[in-house]
């Protein structure tokens, strides 16, 4: 038996003892996990996007096809480099050493065989900032010197990647909003169930002169407690998954994606998930009770 003063202020409804409504912590936890993963992924993609853009924006690659005649190919390279040096949009241009191309083919043909092979020549050109670069026009010019040469300014795949990152960001925002709505809905449902369960006690509180907001506060407090526990665990699990993925990625070197482990903004956004979930739950519970009570005498 509890001694006097042993009970919490505002526990008249005994909501904290309802085991039936603890599932709401699980629901909020799952939703928080989802939100954390969506946000984490979006942040990872956006940070990877910035990095890749820094690496590849402003660089164009020119490929001069292989010819059986090495002297002719060397002449073509010289002509191309001359053209590039005259182009007002290009800062510097440099042929890649032959070894890079050899390394790519060695596994197929044997290193020895490759050495004797005619290979295409690759040229990296660094673009000037702020000057418009027209890859198509340059390619036409270069083709006069080296037929079959190609100019790739990486814009297509970088643009594609950035579009994917942007889309992922939008999806993440949509997921977070959907998760928020689902959480509010689940809390609303649980709160209505709680009101039904405690209808008699609520009536008693009313009859002894309690105001609606007094009762609503108790439900909000109970929802807040459950949501906080659930969302803290869910977000923690999500952060764990993200950190694990990061470690796996760096350990295997499989992924070129830098994950936002040290991006303070990213962590702040993740940390805000449980706070937002808790707030959403408390407000939803409060509003649900106020609305439901307004409908009874």
């Amino acid at each position: 038996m509890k001694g006097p003063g042993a009970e919490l202020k505002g526990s008249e409804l005994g909501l904290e003892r309802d085991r039936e409504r603890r599932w709401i912590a699980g629901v909020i936890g799952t939703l928080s996990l989802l939100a954390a993963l969506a946000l984490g992924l979006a942040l990872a993609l956006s940070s990877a996007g910035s990095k890749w853009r820094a690496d590849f924006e402003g660089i164009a690659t020119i490929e001069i096809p292989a010819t059986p005649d090495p002297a002719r190919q060397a002449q073509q390279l010289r002509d191309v480099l001359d053209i590039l040096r005259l182009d007002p949009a290009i800062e510097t241009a440099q042929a890649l050493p032959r070894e890079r191309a050899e390394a790519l083919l060695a596994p197929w043909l044997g290193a020895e065989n490759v050495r004797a092979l005619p290979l295409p020549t690759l040229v990296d050109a660094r673009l000037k900032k702020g000057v418009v670069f027209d890859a198509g026009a340059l390619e036409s010019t270069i083709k006069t010197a080296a037929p079959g040469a190609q100019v790739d300014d990486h814009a297509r795949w970088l643009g594609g990647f950035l579009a994917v990152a942007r889309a992922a960001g939008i999806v993440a925002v949509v997921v977070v909003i959907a998760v928020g709505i689902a959480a509010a809905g689940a809390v609303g449902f649980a709160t209505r169930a709680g009101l039904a369960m405690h209808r008699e006690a609520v009536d008693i509180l009313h009859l002894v002169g309690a105001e609606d907001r007094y009762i609503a506060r108790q439900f909000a407090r109970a929802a807040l407690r459950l949501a906080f526990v659930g969302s803290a665990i869910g977000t923690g699990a999500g952060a764990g998954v993200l950190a694990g993925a990061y470690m796996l990625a760096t350990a295997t070197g499989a992924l070129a994606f830098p994950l936002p482990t040290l991006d303070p903004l990213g962590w702040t956004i993740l940390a805000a998930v449980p706070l937002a979930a808790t707030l959403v739950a408390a407000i939803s519970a409060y509003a649900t009770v106020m609305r439901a009570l307004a409908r009874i005498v």
Partner: protein
Amino acid sequence: MVSFERVGLRYGLGPEILRDISFSLAPGSLHFLTGASGAGKSSLLSLLYLARKPSRGTVKLFGEDVTAIARRDLPPLRRQIGVVFQDFRLLDHLPVIDNVALPLRVQGIADSQVREHAAELLAWVGLGDHLNALPPTLSGGQKQRVAIARAVIGRPRLLIADEPTGNVDDRIAVRLMRLFDELNRLGTTIVIATHNMQLVQESRHPELRLDGGALYQTRKGAA
């Protein structure tokens, strides 16, 4: 204090339980409400303690027309009314002392004051050694006395008791009646619904009798 004007009450689409009831209670009066089982005593009282609104007619309380009152203005009115329910309506998971303290608690009054007051009241109804018992561990009569303590802790202007002596023996019934008398002398207006005709007959207070949905004021008396 209280006045009913041509009040009717029906539940859902059922027949009228109360028909054309008009009466008024002077401040400081004590009335018994009698009538057969199912006559509508509890229903009439529920109109008095603002648990429902009448189907028609006007109920005035402390000068205000409560049939027209806004929802948010009910709590302050209810705090001036103490109720002893026929079925007690205690919160089973709260110790007796917290049940008694409830009406003050919901007003936001500090716990320390409230508990002392509740303990005093419980001693007064003879439950001084059951402060921390939970209602399910109490006997019927003990619960009834907890309900009475809760009804009076807020010093209500109007006290409503539905069958307050139904579960106690005559000795305690008499003691409770003395208690009501005392509160009445201190100025509380009281309405007691009861089947205990002996209690009514031995008292100097007037009786309101419900029969066939109508109210008869017998023994217009002392109040």
